[in-house]
Each structure stands twice: as structure tokens, then as C-alpha cells.
């Protein structure tokens, strides 16, 4: 891409910044404009549910390295993209002129979902942005008598753990019978439940939230004082954190002509339309490995997607053959003194076998098998083993080979 070429990257979080960085370091000689509605210097998100809450990390500590490197990016923060016109090849923005592009990277990610009617109630939080995390931290530091976390997925679990580390009383509410059942299956979900219970969390499983109990707040709004659960019980509390998942930020792309279906639907090289690629939480692509369309919300996936999306555009410009984007999903979650790592994509009815350690000691590795292939590796405080067995998922190894390899570690 020569000096006349303009690439717009919409979204300056992990995927967008890695795309921008890769474009520049791999030879893009033109303008790289990066937009984000969030006014903060691009930042890393994993610490928002962990160190920001429990160890007082300040915003500067979260700055993405790509935001400090000398990449000659035209970074426009606090600028919200509002539409895309593929015919005129422009991105429209709030309070500004349309921006023209030659190539485009879509990386607008996702937003936290609220329980209907709860946004704006004082004391109720989601944790997705830096502003969210700092506002929650202020309320946690005020020493609430009890915090209710709704949703025992990875965000909810980490927030619960962070609140416990501040010596706060925590009730964790999960609609499924065990935490993370859809991601890890029943057996491993029960292990996650035990981790919470052993750290003093009041765990309410298999029950949802019916409504919030609120009172008038000083500013004329409402403030939460309790959570009424679907089983008829009420939990008094001062702070509620909602961790029930996200919705993808594709609203601004409605009417653009792109296929929007739980994300921006791309081909196997992350192309959504000629000269348009997507990366990160927003990108839905056909995985040969898993035989289905995937949209993955993991940290490493955003990095790999950003880099791959950029390389896809560069391959086009150079007339080179594009590579297929089909990584094995991998992520980690730190809860209390446990490090959970998962490589692959287990399904609820996969076979599960503990191959290292034991779930009793909360230090183990389990393999997931489907159709005689190893499709997932789950580790709790056994990083060395996970990283070596992860390779087998990438290679599509048989379950038997994986069991043998695990026995050798």
C-alpha cells in the first residue's frame, strides 16, 4: 500500500490496534486512521476485572504497547463511527465529516449487556470499559456490605474473586446449574463452582434475577438495595455487577450491505467485502477446524485476528495468496489463586478425562474428546502441561495420542 493509500481501522482496542500495528510494520506506507468512540488511550481489558479492582492499578498501566510505539497512526479517540457506505467507500462519524478509505478494518467489538431496566440505577455496574471498571472500583473501595454479581461467566467470576480479595461479602448468581456449563461442561463447571465456594462466595446456582429492589437516590434517580431472585429470595446489597455477556457492536453497520449475523460474517480469510476485513470480537468466520461459523471473544484471538486481517489486506495489495484464519481458541482466567486455561472449543456432550493431577486438589489438566479427536484442553494451575497439550488440538490429534502424550508429561 503506497503513500496514497488510506486504511481506516474502526476500533482501537486489541484487535484494531494490532491490525494497525501489523499494517505499518509490514510495509503500509500510506495513512492508517484508527477511530474509537472511547476517549481513553487504547488500553488492555483483562486487568479491568482483576488488578484494576483488586490491586489499584491505574489507567496508565493498561495502555496497549501498540499505542506507544512509533507507528505514525492517525489515532482519533472519542470519535464514534455511525455508518458505512461501501459504494462511496466512506465511514460516517458522529459530529464530523465522512472519512474516505481504500481499505477498511472493522474491529468495533462488543458492549456489555444490561439486565433490562437496570442501566442508570445507581450501584449497578457492568465491566467492559475502563470507565466501567474505575466506577466499580470506587464503589468497592467504599466497602459495601455485600456485592451481588449476576452471571458466573469469566467476567462475573473474576469480579467475584476481586471483590473477595478486598474482603467483601459476595453473592454470585448463575442461571445455569453450574458456572460455565456451556463452555466447560457439567463436570468441570462443578469444579469452578467449588472454587468459588471454597473462597467464601455465596453461590446461587440455577436461578435467575427477577428484579432489582431500589430506593430513590439523592439525584432523583434510583439506587439498588437488593436483588430479588426468581426463586422468591432477596439478597440485600449495595453493589450489583452484571456479567451476562455482550452484544456485538454491529448496529452502525446496518444497511451497509455487509452480512450481519451475530457479528460481521467473513470468509475464511476474514474478508467481509472487497477491501474490508473484520477482526476481534466482532468477526464471525467459517472455521475448518470446527466445521462451523465461529465468533470468539478471547484476548489472544483478538491479537491473532488483528494481525491476520492486516496481513489479508496486505496480501491483496501485493497479489499474494491469503492464508486461512483458523486458530485454536485459547484463553486464561485468573480467579483467586487459580489460573484456568482453556485451549480449543469443547461442547457440552464431549467426553472429559482428567489426565494430570486431580480436581480435588484444584490442580489438574482435563482433555475433551469428540469423535475420537482431542478438541479441548482445560488446565487449572498447570500451565506447562496446557501449553504442550494445546499443540495436539492444533494438530487434530486423536484422543488416544493425546492421552499418551499427557501421560508422558
Amino acid at each position, binding site marked *: 500500500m503506497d503513500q496514497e493509500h488510506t486504511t481506516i481501522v474502526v476500533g482501537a482496542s486489541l484487535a484494531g490496534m*494490532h491490525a494497525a500495528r501489523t499494517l505499518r510494520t509490514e510495509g503500509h506506507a500510506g495513512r492508517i486512521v484508527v477511530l474509537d468512540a472511547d476517549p481513553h488511550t487504547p488500553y488492555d481489558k483483562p486487568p479491568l476485572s482483576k488488578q484494576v479492582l483488586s490491586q489499584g492499578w491505574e489507567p496508565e498501566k493498561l495502555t496497549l504497547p501498540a499505542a506507544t510505539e512509533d507507528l505514525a497512526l492517525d489515532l482519533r479517540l472519542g470519535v464514534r463511527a455511525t455508518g458505512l457506505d461501501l459504494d462511496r467507500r466512506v465511514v460516517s462519524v458522529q459530529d464530523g465529516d465522512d472519512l474516505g478509505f481504500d481499505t477498511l478494518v472493522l474491529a468495533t467489538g462488543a458492549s456489555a449487556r444490561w439486565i433490562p431496566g437496570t442501566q442508570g440505577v445507581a450501584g449497578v455496574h457492568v465491566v467492559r470499559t475502563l470507565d466501567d471498571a474505575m466506577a466499580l472500583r470506587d464503589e468497592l473501595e467504599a466497602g459495601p456490605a455485600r456485592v451481588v454479581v449476576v452471571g458466573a461467566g469469566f467476567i462475573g467470576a473474576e469480579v467475584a474473586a476481586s471483590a473477595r480479595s478486598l474482603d467483601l461479602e459476595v453473592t454470585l448468581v448463575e442461571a445455569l446449574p453450574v458456572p460455565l456449563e456451556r463452555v466447560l461442561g457439567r463436570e468441570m463447571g462443578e469444579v469452578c463452582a467449588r472454587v468459588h465456594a471454597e473462597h467464601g462466595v455465596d453461590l446461587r446456582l440455577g436461578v435467575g434475577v427477577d428484579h432489582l429492589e431500589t430506593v430513590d437516590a439523592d439525584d432523583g434517580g434510583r439506587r439498588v438495595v437488593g436483588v430479588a431472585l426468581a426463586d422468591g429470595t432477596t439478597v440485600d446489597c449495595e453493589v450489583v455487577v452484571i456479567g451476562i455477556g455482550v452484544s456485538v457492536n454491529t448496529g452502525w453497520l446496518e444497511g451497509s450491505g455487509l452480512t450481519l449475523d451475530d457479528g460481521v460474517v467473513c470468509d475464511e480469510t476474514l474478508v467481509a467485502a472487497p477491501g474490508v476485513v473484520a477482526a476481534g470480537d466482532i468477526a464471525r468466520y467459517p472455521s475448518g477446524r470446527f466445521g462451523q461459523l465461529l465468533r470468539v471473544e478471547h*484476548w489472544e484471538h483478538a491479537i491473532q485476528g488483528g494481525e491476520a486481517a492486516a496481513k489479508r489486506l496486505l496480501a491483496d495489495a501485493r497479489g499474494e495468496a491469503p492464508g486461512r484464519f483458523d486458530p485454536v481458541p485459547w484463553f486464561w482466567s485468573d480467579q483467586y489463586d487459580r*489460573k484456568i486455561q482453556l485451549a480449543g472449543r469443547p461442547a457440552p456432550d464431549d467426553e472429559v478425562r482428567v489426565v494430570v493431577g486431580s480436581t480435588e486438589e484444584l490442580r489438574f489438566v482435563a482433555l475433551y474428546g469428540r469423535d475420537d479427536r482431542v478438541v479441548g484442553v482445560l488446565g487449572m494451575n498447570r500451565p506447562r502441561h496446557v501449553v504442550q497439550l494445546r499443540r495436539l488440538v492444533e494438530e487434530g490429534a486423536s484422543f488416544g495420542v493425546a492421552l499418551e502424550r499427557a501421560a508422558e508429561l
Partner: protein
Amino acid sequence: MRVVVDYDLCESNAVCMGIAPEIFEVRDDDFLYVLDETPPESERAKVEEAVQRCPKQAISIED
């Protein structure tokens, strides 16, 4: 090139070990050991990938 690890940030996620096991090793004590602090230039691409993918951004390269 010199491979530098900030052990205050390192949490032994072992991603680096998966990328360059000849340079990074997380052992049974769960600590990361850098097996070769001055690897040859041929290893640069792998070390840079480890730098990018370390969940704690604990690895840096000093030239």
C-alpha cells in the same frame, strides 16, 4: 538480542513456551526460566511473537 522478562508481571501463562520452547520453559515449580537470554537472530520472529502474545506483556527485547 537479549530476551528480558519482567518477573513482577510474569504469571507463567506459558504462552511463550508454546511459541519458543527452546527459549522459554515453565517448569514444575510453575516458574518461567529463560533458557537462552541471547538467542540467535534466527529466533527473532518467534521471540517477537512471544512478546506480542504474552498475556501480561512481561517480555521485551533489548538490542
